[in-house]
């Protein structure tokens, strides 16, 4: 089958001169049967791709609404099945390389290439894209097609081995055993290839939950008991009744990791030796070790051990029935579990493999962003991949946001009820449900009816196709990795438009009990010093300040005139302090309560009252 003729090109280019030049050059070189449409920004390109048939995209990634790699990602996300060629002035090898990784088929430099070259590059790009697609389909089809005959082969051999067709002479049984065990090895190989292909393409969905490691190890040992007996190897779990070691993992995938390490250790152990598994709980991580008494890993093979199809002594390993993919799969899974895997030579011979995974408690403690700047608007990120979540938190912190995590739908709903978030970012694939269902349930909560919600996903298309999606007023569907500029633009915009929003309270105190109580009334930003309070007031708007003047350390009279919102309007203040009485005469102080005489309840009543009267005032002005 030959490559398809390119009939329609979408040129995404905001420089009208370049557009004209390209058109003229195309016409001159007789590319008449190729139709070229040009758009001058990414959003126009996205609209065009939804409504028209296009064969290839030619993109200059310096656009008014998308730049650089972000532009390439967006173009690729808008049409993941279309070939994409970048045409740019930026002659930078590392950018070019990243562009290709982001899904571009070629990276051409303006001025270095003439029109015939561009036309040829477009044809080749289309062909490369077609082959890439064929490869993906091929791997998944092959794995299925191979399993069909394998089902008949392993089934028939298994029946013969089980004497379902009567008993047979020993020499025949021996040969059948060879055929049988090799057919099973072929099945494992097909499974492993499909597994690794899916994992590399990021298509494996991990269902994270709280997993106790020891019972899983016991399960793996039990499942490999027969295998260990075949090799004459004993497997022992050290300290089987030790303290609970809970990690955050996908139990099926973690079992696969333990099984692969265990079966490796068994295969390479001499008969009558032990394989010892140990589970130790550290401060933030749980460490699983698998120790064998095998020949050890040859020095020159150590750097290659997690590579695909790597086997130290290919002949020997093949005799052991391995696929050469086991450790590579272990590495891929452990990476996705935000863990680490490695190995050391065991004292006295043999090898110790270790896997380190984040403790459940540690991951849970990371969920609330405790290091954000005071006054930062708080976002809820519903994302089950810890590394992705931490990266996005770090990026968003630099632009002034605090980001709490929810690792599942249940988690997200629980958090959304106890804390009010400025905006919610939702991944489509969550362990206990899909993101679209989560958004449906959030929108059903009165306080989240108008909250900005943005989908951030490796595959936003699958959510957008959901028939419910159009009714959920999702602000945007973003691809991972996230185009931060675009995300921030969306996050900043809707704040002012939010109707029915909760009041925002600036709390200047150190008292947690007061902060908790206030958070039931509105969104609370707690700061400890007057300087922080002034910064917070510059960063965002507040309806009311609750202030312990004792913190001002004598500077309190100077502070009060500063409590204005960004439009210069005075903010009502509730002073909560033993000194309250002396300040009560100031016009800005709505209420002065002496801390020693006032319970939290009556403070809250005063805060509610002041907020209500302020809202009334605003209505009167309007």
């Amino acid at each position, binding site marked *: 089958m030959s490559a398809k003729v390119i009939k329609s090109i979408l040129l995404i280019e905001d420089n009208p001169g370049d557009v004209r030049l390209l058109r003229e050059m195309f016409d001159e070189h007789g590319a008449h049967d190729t139709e070229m449409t040009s758009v001058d920004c990414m959003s126009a390109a996205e609209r065009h791709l939804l409504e028209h048939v296009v064969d290839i995209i030619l993109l200059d990634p310096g656009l008014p609404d998308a730049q650089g790699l972000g532009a390439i990602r967006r173009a690729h996300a808008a049409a993941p099945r279309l070939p994409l060629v970048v045409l740019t002035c930026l002659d930078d090898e590392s950018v070019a390389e990243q562009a290709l990784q982001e899904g571009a088929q070629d990276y051409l430099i303006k001025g270095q290439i003439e029109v015939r070259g561009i036309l040829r590059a477009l044809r080749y790009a289309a062909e490369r894209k077609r082959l890439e697609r064929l490869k993906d389909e091929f791997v998944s089809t092959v794995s*299925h097609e191979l*399993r069909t005959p*394998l*089902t*008949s082969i392993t*089934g*028939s051999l298994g*029946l013969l081995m089980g004497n379902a*067709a009567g008993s047979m002479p020993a020499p025949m049984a021996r040969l059948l055993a060879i055929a049988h065990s090799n057919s099973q090895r072929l099945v494992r190989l097909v499974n492993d290839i499909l597994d690794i292909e899916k994992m590399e393409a990021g298509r494996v969905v991990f269902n994270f939950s709280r997993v106790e490691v020891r019972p899983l190890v016991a399960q793996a040992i039990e499942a490999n008991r027969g295998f260990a007996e075949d090799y004459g190897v004993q497997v022992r779990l050290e300290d089987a009744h030790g303290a609970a070691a809970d990690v955050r993992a996908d139990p099926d995938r973690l079992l696969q990791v333990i099984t692969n390490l265990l079966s490796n250790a068994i295969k390479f152990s001499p008969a009558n030796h032990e394989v010892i598994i140990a589970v130790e709980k550290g401060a933030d991580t749980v460490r699983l070790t698998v120790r064998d008494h095998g020949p050890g890993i040859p020095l020159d093979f150590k750097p290659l051990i997690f590579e695909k199809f790597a086997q130290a002594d290919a002949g020997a390993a093949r005799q052991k029935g391995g696929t050469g993919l086991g450790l590579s799969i272990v590495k891929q899974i452990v990476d996705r579990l935000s863990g680490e895997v490695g190995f050391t030579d065991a004292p006295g011979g043999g090898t110790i493999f270790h896997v380190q995974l984040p403790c459940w408690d540690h991951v849970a403690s990371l969920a609330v962003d405790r290091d954000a700047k005071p006054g930062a608007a708080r976002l809820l990120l519903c994302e089950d991949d810890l590394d992705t979540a931490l990266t996005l938190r770090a990026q968003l912190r630099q632009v002034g946001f605090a980001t709490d995590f929810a690792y599942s739908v249940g988690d997200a709903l629980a958090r959304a009820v106890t804390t009010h978030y400025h905006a919610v970012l939702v991944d489509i694939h969550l362990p206990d449900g899909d993101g679209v269902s989560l958004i449906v349930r959030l929108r059903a909560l009165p306080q989240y009816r108008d909250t900005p919600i943005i989908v951030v996903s490796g595959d936003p298309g699958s959510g957008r196709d959901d028939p419910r999606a159009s009714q959920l007023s999702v602000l945007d569907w973003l691809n991972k990795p996230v185009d931060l500029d675009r995300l921030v633009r969306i996050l900043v915009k809707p704040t002012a438009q939010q109707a029915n929003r909760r009041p925002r309270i600036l709390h200047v105190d150190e008292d947690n009990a007061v902060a908790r109580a206030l958070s039931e009334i509105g969104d609370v930003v707690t700061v400890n010093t007057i300087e922080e309070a002034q910064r917070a007031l510059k960063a965002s708007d507040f309806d009311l300040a609750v202030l312990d003047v004792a913190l001002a350390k004598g500077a309190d009279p100077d502070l009060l005139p500063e409590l204005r919102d960004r439009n210069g309007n005075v903010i009502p203040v509730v002073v909560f302090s033993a000194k309250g009485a002396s300040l009560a005469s100031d016009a800005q102080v709505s209420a002065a309560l002496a801390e020693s005489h006032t319970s939290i309840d009556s403070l809250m009543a005063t805060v509610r009252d002041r907020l209500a009267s302020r809202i009334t005032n605003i209505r009167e002005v309007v």
Partner: protein
Amino acid sequence: MTDIRILLVDDEPDIREVVDVSLGLDPEFKIRACASGADALVTAAEWSPSIILLDVMMPLMDGPTTLVNLRNNPRTADIPVVFLTARTQADEVEQYISLGAQGVLSKPFDPMTLAASVRDYLPPSSLHHAV
């Protein structure tokens, strides 16, 4: 005493035979096999099997479509269906269950334990008759 009737639907003759022998290891099982979804709809309505083992990838009418058709016919709507397939990725399994399948057994299978696995999916009523 009623036999436990198992209807097997698979377009591959070799697999039909291997499954037939494997299930035949259980003396209480009575097995019939169909080579297509269309055949299965007719046989299921006439024979009222205790359970149906259904392949996914079949020409003309695939397994999921066959299941939907079985569910739409009052005479076959309540017969438990278990997929016996090489396509067992998480999203695929989810789809089978959402269509009303009782479970999924993966290919290749262990022929010596297949009958026991099928028994796990039998409704209590059919076991009651058999005993």
